[in-house]
Structure formats: C-alpha cells, structure tokens
C-alpha cells in the first residue's frame, strides 16, 4: 500500500486528503502544515471573520476529530524544509518522513511592501493567514484611519469591513482604476461607487512612495507627494505562488509549480494542486487563486494518484462579499473585447464579457441567476447573442435550452 504525504494543510491539501480517503485509499496519509491551526477556510478572513460576525471555530474545514477518524496524520505547526527526491523523503525539522507519492499544496504568499520604504514597520499587515488577521483585528476600532494599499478583491473587502466598523478608510491603487487586473471598467465603476457611498476614499493612479514612523507606522507619502497620517496599513497587492521548496528539489517551475493535465509535476511521484500550481488550459498555461479551483484540482489529483488518470478541466468561479453586495464571477475574462451590461431588479446587475461572439465570463452583483446561467453557458461552450443578454425582458433560463 502506498504512503502518501501532502505538504500544505490548506484548502487544497485538506480536499486532497478527504478525497483520497473517500476514494478508498487505505495507506498511510500524512498532511503537514506549517500553520498552527487545522485546515481552515480563508475567504472569511477578509469578510465575516474580520468583521467579527463569524467565530473562529466556524472557519475550520473539518473539526479536529475528523482527521483522526479518517486516519489522517495531521502534523500542524511543522514546516517541510526540503524534499529529497531520490530518497523519497521530506524533511521536517530534524526528522525525515518517507513517501511513495507526494503532493504539493503549499498555496501562495502575499506580496509585501519593500523594507526599504518602511514595509517592515509594525502596523503594516498582509491578509493571508488566520494569524495575520488575529493580529490586525484589534486595530479595527471606530474612528481610526486605515490605509489600504491595493484595490483588488482583498483590499476592497478589507475596506468594506473597515467602513462598516466606522473606521476612516483610504484606499490607494497604483493602476488607473481599482480591479484593473481582474475586471472590466464597468465592474470597477460599480465597486468604486459602492465604496465611495460608504465613505471610503479611493485614490486611483497613485502609488505609495514610503511609510513614516519610528517604532510603528504613523504616516504615508504617496507617489504624488501628498502625505497622510495613518493608524495602520493593510497591504493587498497580490500573491506569489510558493514554489521555493519545489524549485530547490529541481522540479520545473513555470509561473507556479508546473503540472501536466493530470496534476503531476515533472517528477512522476510528485503531484501538486491549488494556488501554487500552473497547469495546462486551452492551449496555454494558467494559475488560479480560488477556493473552487483548489478543491477541484485537488480532487482530480486524488483520483489520479489512485490511478484514474482523468485530466483536470478548470471551471473558474469566484465570489466576493462587500457590504450588502455579493459578487459572483464565472469564467475567465482574459482577452475580452466588449462587455454587455444586463440590469436585473433594482439591486442586481451583471456584466458579460465577450471576445467576438464568444462568451468568456460573467461578473454578477446580487444576481445569482445571471451567475449560474453564465456559468453553465461558459462550461458548455455556448455563447448567446449579446443582444439577448442586454434585453431586460428575456428570461435568461431560456438560453440554456439553445
């Protein structure tokens, strides 16, 4: 019976272990994670948990007892420092753990502000782990001034939490508009308005020159030369896949740990899933940072580790919660050349991304119907006539019958 070791006890690692057992793997199964908590969900960290609406024990993907019942050796608070591929072992502290098959689910790490501009000062936070959020939470007091660097989903979610808790919130974005990297200007406009309506000051086209403060951050100088006083800073400027361990072991890296369509790395005994991988997709390679992808890819890898050999077919989806708005995204908008707006009732709206006549993606705000229909259409490679989408009277459900 094969011994399987999984490095990284996050979303993908947990899903992989659960699926392996569900599929009947009876061999030894070890899940190693450097964080001190059992596997938990990250999305609430910048939403309900930060807001204080969700307690800690609801974050865990499974109760601690589950791992024991499933016969999964959960080694948390332990970091893997190297992989010896010839000996087929991984090193944890001064111990080595043997494997027959290994899975890498190390996730990613947030980009930090350079030390040279004050990025290392106390009071500067990134939002990746439960520990990050536990340490920043006490800063969220009514009346304090939070500066957010970066107008992506994490930054905007943190801004929404701050505004709801009565903080003064300023958000700076270096690009000409918030969400520029991930969404159309329609979506940016929508969220800019919501945040501005809630009193958040959004400054686009503006970077950070440096931070000031002796023992902790007290101010920021922006790229336009203006200076502001701040109480603390939240940095949301993207992530980088955690590839070092794989790289040092001599595995191929290509914007993430390189996997084939089965989820196998350049070593046939080593597999990978989640944020840390790049995988084949529609003739190119793709890296995705989302819960749905981490679960689906891990589940496919679990099947393949047990011999199924099914290709992974990504069906990208994502959500974000800001104030009373639930954004749901289906598909990938890369390469879109036009965006069709569909107004729902007073509170819902959706933006449909097309490249020529091909539907690529949908951003739906408080419109689960548009999201679900868009998701189905994209997965089935169906592209309705944009004119029909824009037409208020059409029952979108009819589109599924085409």
């Amino acid at each position, binding site marked *: 019976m094969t011994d399987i070791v999984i490095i990284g006890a996050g979303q993908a690692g947990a899903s992989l272990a659960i699926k392996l057992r*569900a599929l009947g793997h009876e061999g030894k199964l070890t899940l190693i994670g450097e964080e001190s908590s059992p596997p938990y969900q990250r999305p609430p960290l910048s939403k309900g948990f930060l807001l204080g609406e969700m307690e800690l024990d*609801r974050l865990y993907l499974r109760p601690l007892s589950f791992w024991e019942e499933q016969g999964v050796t959960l080694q948390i608070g332990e970091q893997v420092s190297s992989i010896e591929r010839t000996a087929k072992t991984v090193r944890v502290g001064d111990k080595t753990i043997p494997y027959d098959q290994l899975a890498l689910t190390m996730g990613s790490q947030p980009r930090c502000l350079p030390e040279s501009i004050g990025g290392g000062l106390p009071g500067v936070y990134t939002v990746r782990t439960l520990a990050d959020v536990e340490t920043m939470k006490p800063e969220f007091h009514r009346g304090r001034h939070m500066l957010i660097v970066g107008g992506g989903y994490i930054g905007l979610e943190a801004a929404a939490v701050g505004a709801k808790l009565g903080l003064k919130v300023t958000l700076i974005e270096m690009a000409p508009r918030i969400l520029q990297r991930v969404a159309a200007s329609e979506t940016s406009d929508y969220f800019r308005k919501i945040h501005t309506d809630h009193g958040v000051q959004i400054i686009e086209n503006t970077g950070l020159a440096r931070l000031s403060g002796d023992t902790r951050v007290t101010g920021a100088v922006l790229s336009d030369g203006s200076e502001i006083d701040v109480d603390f800073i939240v940095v949301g400027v993207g992530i980088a896949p955690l590839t070092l361990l794989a790289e040092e072991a001599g595995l191929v890296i290509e914007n993430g740990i390189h996997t084939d369509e089965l989820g196998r790395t350049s070593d046939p005994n080593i597999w990978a899933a989640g944020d840390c991988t790049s995988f084949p997709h529609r003739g190119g390679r793709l890296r995705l940072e989302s*819960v*749905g992808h981490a679960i689906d890819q891990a589940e496919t890898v679990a099947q393949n580790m047990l011999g199924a050999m099914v290709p992974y077919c990504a069906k990208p989806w994502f*959500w974000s919660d800001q104030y009373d708005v*639930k954004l749901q995204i289906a598909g990938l908008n890369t390469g879109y050349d036009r965006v069709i707006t569909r107004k729902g009732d007073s509170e819902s709206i959706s933006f449909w991304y097309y490249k020529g006549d091909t539907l690529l993606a949908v951003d739906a705000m*408080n*419109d689960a*119907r548009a999201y679900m229909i868009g998701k*189905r259409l994209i997965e089935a490679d169906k592209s309705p006539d944009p004119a029909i989408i824009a037409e208020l009277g059409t029952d979108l459900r009819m589109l599924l019958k085409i």
Partner: protein
Amino acid sequence: MAKITYIEFGGVEHVVDVPNGQTVMEGARDNGIPGIDAECGGACACSTCHVYVDSAWVDKLPAKEGMEEDMLDFAFEPDPVRSRLTCQVKVSELLDGLIVQMPERQI
C-alpha cells in the same frame, strides 16, 4: 441544540445534535456526514450544500431569501418546495427533529 437527521442518498441515516446558531450545513460538516460538499463554506455562492427537507418541515423553516432561491434553481435536480441550501438555514430549538435528505449529487 436540535437533533437533526441527515439521510444520505443511499438511505444511510445520521442523527446528530447541532448547536443553536450553527447552520444545518455546519452540522453535517462538523459530524463528517458525506453528501453536503459546501465548497464556498456557507457564503451562498456555490449551491453545493443542497438538501431536500422532509415535507412535514417545509413550512416550519425560516423562509428562503431571494439569493438562496436563485441559487437553488440551478442546483442538481431541485425540488421547488423541498429544496434548501443548508448553509442558509440556522439551527434553533425550533428545528429539533428536522429531517433532511441529500440529493444524488451536488453538481
């Protein structure tokens, strides 16, 4: 605390106590009951926590909100009356004795 019976598609029954304030989805998750995937962790964003509520209970549950209703329309084989997203159903004493059945699959 409420006693909730989860019936797997194949008929296997799980009777568990779920604390007040948790959701019916969390009750399944925390007791290792298979059949409720709950990919989004309760954000009403994935529709993989779908169940059929026992007919006798349909009217006793708090009403569906619009978002849940719309997500359910596209769940796997939804039933207009009995289907619910378990992450949207909060547990209280009033739910003591609730019976839910899992669909054949979630997607």
